[in-house]
């Protein structure tokens, strides 16, 4: 079971994840239309590139945009959550050990206590995201069951990983559930709004080009995101 899940199943999950995301980006770019979107993507390119870079940088850095600065609490929550989501699994010792063993390469790693802490922080951030959805009327009205399901799919590998690591109840059970939930998450990303792992960049680049080329980018420094 373990061999299968970390072997062929893992290859399939990663394959679907990477190919799926590449396909999403290709579909996005092919669906852009200069006249319908009213942005000359292939003319005035230098303004487009400048606008795109400014748009991505302002929003990928904590407090990098007026929008992030206007909501410090949520901003902190979002960045902690996303940092934990990305950083923990990538640099976890156990994952890299497996990587080395199966595919012959590994990344720089963090210590287990650090990973432990990051996992707990990520889970706590997720709880706060749920509470925020319930507590704030302006978020509640937007929230659907789908949002909770996706959050569940996203944090399941963290929760199960934590339980496995601390050998709560049955290590092997949690390990299997952990691997399966991780693979489910990978497979879901291209097919759900979790595809924002790449579409965030597509959308931000597109809007950056829109403002950079057409909406004022040629008239000065550009939009003060």
């Amino acid at each position: 079971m373990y061999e299968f899940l970390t072997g062929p199943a893992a290859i399939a999950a990663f394959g679907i994840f990477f190919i799926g995301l590449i396909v999403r980006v290709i579909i996005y770019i092919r669906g852009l239309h200069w006249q319908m979107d009213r942005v000359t993507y292939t003319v005035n390119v230098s303004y487009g590139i400048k606008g795109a870079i400014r748009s991505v940088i302002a929003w990928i850095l904590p407090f990098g945009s007026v929008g992030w600065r206007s909501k410090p609490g949520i901003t902190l929550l979002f960045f902690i959550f996303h940092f934990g989501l990305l950083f923990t699994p990538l640099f976890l010792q156990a994952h890299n050990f497996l990587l080395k063993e199966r595919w012959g390469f590994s990344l720089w790693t963090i210590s287990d206590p650090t990973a432990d802490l990051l996992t707990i922080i990520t889970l706590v951030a997720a709880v706060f995201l749920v509470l925020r959805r319930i507590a704030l009327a302006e978020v509640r009205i937007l929230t659907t069951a789908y949002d909770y399901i996706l959050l569940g799919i996203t944090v399941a590998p963290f929760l199960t990983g934590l339980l496995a690591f601390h050998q709560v109840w049955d290590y092997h059970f949690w390990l299997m559930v952990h691997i399966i939930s991780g693979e489910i998450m990978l497979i879901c990303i291209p097919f759900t709004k979790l595809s924002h792992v790449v579409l965030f960049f597509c959308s931000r680049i597109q809007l950056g080009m829109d403002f950079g080329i057409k909406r004022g980018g040629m008239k000065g420094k550009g939009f003060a995101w």
Partner: protein
Amino acid sequence: MAEGKLCNRKTVDTKEYLNALLADKSGKQYYKEMEELDVDTDKLQATLKASLKSRLRTWLEICAHCGMCADSCFLYLANNRDPKQVPSYKIQSTLGEIVKRKGKVDNKFMRMVMDTAWSKCTCCNRCASFCPFGIDMGIMFGYLRGLCFSQGFVPWELKIGTGMHRIFQAQMDVTSEDWVDTCEWMAEEYEDDWPDLAIPVDKENADIMYTLNAREPKHYPDDIAETAVLFHLAGENWTVPSEGWDQTNLAMFAGDWGACKIQVESVYKAMNRLKPKRMVGTECGHAHRSTVIEGPYWAGIKDGKTPVESIHYVEWVAEALRTGKLKIDPSKKIKEPVTYQDSCNYIRNGGLKNISREIMSYIAEDFREMTPNREHNFCCGGGGGFNGIGRYRAQRNAGLQIKRQQILDTGAKLVISPCHNCWDAIRDMEEIFKDGIRWSFLKPLLINMVEVPEHLKPEGEL
């Protein structure tokens, strides 16, 4: 499929139809017919298939439902933070739903969509600058208005507006003859005070071709005279076209993309005919947005630029003051506290924030910024056609409160507003709230402030 005589899916291309709409006071019959108007779901589905591209589809799909857009919307703030005014909710419950149901929606739903598209969003695009994903709900509402228009669900005044553009290539029933007559009349009227003042019509190869808002010849002809005086004082070689002179575009507010194209092409044709070095537009936000920023796309111009370089009036004023073509008499600078209304259409969506500040540095001694300002300024409360739709007057008036508070907080009683829509909104605000606020375009203020060279003064004053 049921369609009304006045309210239907047809475009207004004849004077008979236009006159019938105008005769229907306040659109009483029009809105009654709308209740019976069938939705052509096949057409709606086909339109979605042809025009809903990856940008909009992606925006609808990836919205994280985080609610960061809520506070960015002045209508949300002005309506006691009603969750139904959250931009994401407004677009998901209308366009999102139409897409989800693949166009299979009914009359009642479309009327709700129309009310949302024109009374809960002014397409100011402010929410776009607060969404982490860069989802521009203003653009989506623009698209949604196009869907509504194609199905005949459009406010009465805007249906009329599109007819005006289609028939007169102007937002009001001002013919080419009326327009040229008004120019001659204004030149005569003002020439006693300003010797040799002229409004040259159809002069080829001028440095500037001036285009304006049809309201000016129709209701405020003095604005044209003021334009002429300032160009005269600045020594500009300028002209106006006899045809293709209206820079505005109510069709953009209505979502009638066919009329948008007709309108901007009339102006581009004038550019090509008269071959000016550049075009200067009047103190109007949406006119600049439609003719200079969006227009080239409707006209299919691949570099996204107008046939000749086109600038907003504030760009010309800043240049004239910077280069000394116009000189301000220092003793006549505005002494009292004064603030500036950043128009969404040429500040947030046109990048002219610094130009406006430059002008203020030349003419005002106590300039006070609103908070927030520049590209993050709030809509005046009347943009996107909101000012002109009787059906939504109460909602428009409620929305004005945010701008009102912004102005009051500056402590200034004078608001400079080089945009017709903002100007109207602030005028109406004063009518309702009576705060003693005054509002003005730049032109009348500048005329009272500029130094008049000796040779341009009337003889009696020499």
